[in-house]
């Protein structure tokens, strides 16, 4: 599997920006400091430009097959734990009104995806952080930061961000970040297991593999990022989902344009590790007609502001 990853966050940069009357203070996402065991030695430099789109494409089928060896139930336990790792780094933002609204928008979008049913459903949570970031774990736990919410100027833009994250879940990008060897290892232990309850040695062995899998995903999600190919795939899924629900997919391009305007070339993590917004916009150009978007209905404006005005 190619290790040529770029950083994964949907939005992520340093600077201070003002959008639609909302001010976003954007801090560089700090993923230094504490991480669970095994994630502390994150690769500092990732060789992100090693022609990875092609190599990933070539190995994608094999990896996807390996990732599919896990049942949705196992994917659920992996997703829960990756979520807990995210929530051990970030504090949850305890705002019931905002959380409820993000869940209504998010679950509506998830139902319109190609993977509306996961083992225990999609659930969304806001992270109390200034970073502009979002994460999606296998099986459908999706996290967005307050910083990211503050940069969405309407419901359609929020929907574009959430739909992109649903796209990562739908395409099982997290599961595909698990090292192939680890998948084989896990399946071997499961195959050896002969009784209803694991023997202690099997539990120990599986837990090691489990921990390794969590670390593979968390490292990819938090530190090294998904490949350009995966980001493009999530963007494409987002366009489809937005269209099905009736949101203007141009909102995704608007978000990317805002990112592009805020990036400082060469200086920061996002610029270093992400596919450039421009390249993502180019990729979307074939799917989304350019031109001014229709103004969103007043109802959407009203409920968006009501739920998120104080976030």
């Amino acid at each position, binding site marked *: 599997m190619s290790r040529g990853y770029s950083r994964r966050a949907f939005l992520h940069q340093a600077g201070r920006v003002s959008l639609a009357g909302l001010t976003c203070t954007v801090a560089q996402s700090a993923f230094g400091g504490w991480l669970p065991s095994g994630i502390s030695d994150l690769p500092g430099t990732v060789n992100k430009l090693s022609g990875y789109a092609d190599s990933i494409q070539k190995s994608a089928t094999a990896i996807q097959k390996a990732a599919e060896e896990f049942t949705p*139930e*196992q994917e659920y336990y992996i997703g*829960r*734990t990756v979520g807990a790792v995210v929530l051990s780094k970030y504090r949850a933002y305890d705002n019931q009104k905002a959380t409820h609204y993000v869940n209504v928008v998010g679950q*509506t979008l998830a139902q319109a995806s190609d993977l509306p049913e996961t*083992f225990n459903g999609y659930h969304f949570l806001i992270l109390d952080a200034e970073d502009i970031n979002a994460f999606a774990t296998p099986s459908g736990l999706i996290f967005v930061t307050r910083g990211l919410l503050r940069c969405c100027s309407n419901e359609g833009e929020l929907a574009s961000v959430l739909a992109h994250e649903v796209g990562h879940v739908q395409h099982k990008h997290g599961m595909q970040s698990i090292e192939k060897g680890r998948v084989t290892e896990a399946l071997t232990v499961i195959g050896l297991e002969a009784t209803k309850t694991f023997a202690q040695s099997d539990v120990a062995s599986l837990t090691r593999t489990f921990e390794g899998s969590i670390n593979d995903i968390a490292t990819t999600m938090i530190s090294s990022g998904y490949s350009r190919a995966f980001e493009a795939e999530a963007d494409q899924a987002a366009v489809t989902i937005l269209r099905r629900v009736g949101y203007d997919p141009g909102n995704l391009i608007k978000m990317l344009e805002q990112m592009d305007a805020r990036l400082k070339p060469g200086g920061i993590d996002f610029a270093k590790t992400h596919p450039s917004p421009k390249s993502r916009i180019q990729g979307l150009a074939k799917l989304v007609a350019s031109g001014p978007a229709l103004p969103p209905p007043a109802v959407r404006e009203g409920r968006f502001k009501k739920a998120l005005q104080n976030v």
Partner: protein
Amino acid sequence: MTKTMSVQVKKCPLRNQPSFLGKVVSTLAYGDQVSVREERASWLHVATGKGEGWTHSSALTPKKIILNPDSREVRASTSSEEIALAGKGFNKQVEQEYRRQNRNVDFTWVDKMEQIVISQTEIGSFLREGGLTAEGGKS
């Protein structure tokens, strides 16, 4: 020939029409087997001992899910792509062991967010009032 499939998610509501906005007429459990009667895009009309109705295909797998496999079934699963084992591999027991070894990884909010449920009625109103559609649920 009727196709047999199994529920691969925790709970699988059956609806009276091929849409998430359809009324739930019955709810199936993980591992339940169904007979597929009709396919309409990504929606399947299925029949079980618990009744019949529509479900999105992503809730089902062609594999037979064995809830409490014995050793023979476990061995068979390794050489068969037609069988999946419930509760095996990465499961609650493994999560608990992971948590014991990683006490600084906090699951409190994961558990809380999993409790967030949005009713289909609310999603329906949200779509309608916002001038949106549930087309995705139908196709």
